[in-house]
């Protein structure tokens, strides 16, 4: 307010005219004359050309991207799909998680481990306690050493983690022609493109590699895989799995379900996290409104007061 009144009180144009006049014609000067003050044409031309060259070379040097890899080595970028569970106010579709876990168990689990997910984490998410206990008991786990120091086998419990299909990395490589099937617990977080990439990879196998593509021995062609040569072949075909809820098991349906399941495996906290986020935003919006009101309340007397200077009246 104060600054604005100060500005308004001084005539604007008058100041501008005055300062312009003062700079262009000086009352007394030590310079040679008026001509030397304005720069000659060739200087303007040189400066403009130099500026243009500098900007052009900077744009040339910094405007280009450098690619260390060929597009084939980079892999085809996956399509961005409208995932329902990726929206800010949507949870996972737990029926889809259940179907996806079925796909994992019947298709993926023969090669890929899911070692960071315990049986208990499925309870109350996509299965009942009894179902999960039965599933855990189908697997054998090592016991603690007994009195003789020997390790026996016991049926699995809810607190056990899902067993890996191979004993160790070497066994996995030996069984898969030297390629290691990655653990799928965090694969959605661990790959560029996340859900889109895995869905594209699973559904992106062409019937035969395109003409001119070099596919190594025992490898398969998949344009979405960096390098295009992938040891895993196409595994999802229509009807590989029979869903218990009657959903048609097409390739894309199974890929979508298993990708959503793998996303849950990587972020099991997502549902709660989003709900907390919505609550926090609602609360903080209210608190922000209150703080704005308090600020205005506290500042009202200061903003609205008027300071008046009454000069002393001289007595005569």
């Amino acid at each position, binding site marked *: 307010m104060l600054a604005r009144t100060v500005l308004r009180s001084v005539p604007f144009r008058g100041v501008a005219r005055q300062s312009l006049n003062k700079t262009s014609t000086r009352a007394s000067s030590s310079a040679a004359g008026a001509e030397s003050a304005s720069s000659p044409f060739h200087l303007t031309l040189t400066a403009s050309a130099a500026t243009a060259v500098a900007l052009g070379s900077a744009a040339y040097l910094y405007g280009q991207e450098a690619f260390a890899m060929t597009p084939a080595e980079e892999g085809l970028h996956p399509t961005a799909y409208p995932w329902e569970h990726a929206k800010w106010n949507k*949870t996972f*579709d*737990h029926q889809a998680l259940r179907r996806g876990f079925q796909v994992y168990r019947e298709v993926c689990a023969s090669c890929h481990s899911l070692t960071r997910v315990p049986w208990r984490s499925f309870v109350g998410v996509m299965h009942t306690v009894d179902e999960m206990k039965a599933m855990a008991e189908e697997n054998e786990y090592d016991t603690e050493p007994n009195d003789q120091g020997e390790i026996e086998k016991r049926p699995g419990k809810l607190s056990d983690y899902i067993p890996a299909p191979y004993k160790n990395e070497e066994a996995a490589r030996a069984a898969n022609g030297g390629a290691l099937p990655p653990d799928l617990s965090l694969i959605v977080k661990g790959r560029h493109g996340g859900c889109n990439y895995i869905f594209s990879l699973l559904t992106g196998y062409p019937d035969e590699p395109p003409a001119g593509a070099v596919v190594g021995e025992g490898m398969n062609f998949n344009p979405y895989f960096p390098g295009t040569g992938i040891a895993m072949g196409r595994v999802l075909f229509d009807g590989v799995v029979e869903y218990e809820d009657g959903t048609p098991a097409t390739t894309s349906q199974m890929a979508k379900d298993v990708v959503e399941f793998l996303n849950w495996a990587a972020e099991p906290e997502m549902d709660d996290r989003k*709900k907390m986020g*919505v609550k926090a935003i609602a609360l903080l919006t209210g608190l922000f409104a209150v703080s704005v009101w308090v600020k205005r309340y506290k500042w009202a007397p*200061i903003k609205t007061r008027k300071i008046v200077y009454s000069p002393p009246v001289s007595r005569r």
Partner: protein
Amino acid sequence: MAGAVRSPRPDRFRYLPARLPFPRIFKRGLFRRNAVYLTSIFGAAFAFELAFDTASNKIWDSFNRGRQWKDIKYQYVNKAEEDDE
């Protein structure tokens, strides 16, 4: 200060707004005794938390109708009971 309105308050408080925003009942009932004041704060916090959580959970469930475990649970719990019979 020309045209100063006569105020019941002393002149040095003239920067305060003429009408305080809180009703008198708050000042009388709540702020006089610290115990009452604290109790009402804790009680209000408890009641607000309860109401806010209930309301926001309801809104959240309406966003996600049919997607959560509690929406599909009945299919599997009933099935397990039928197997037992």
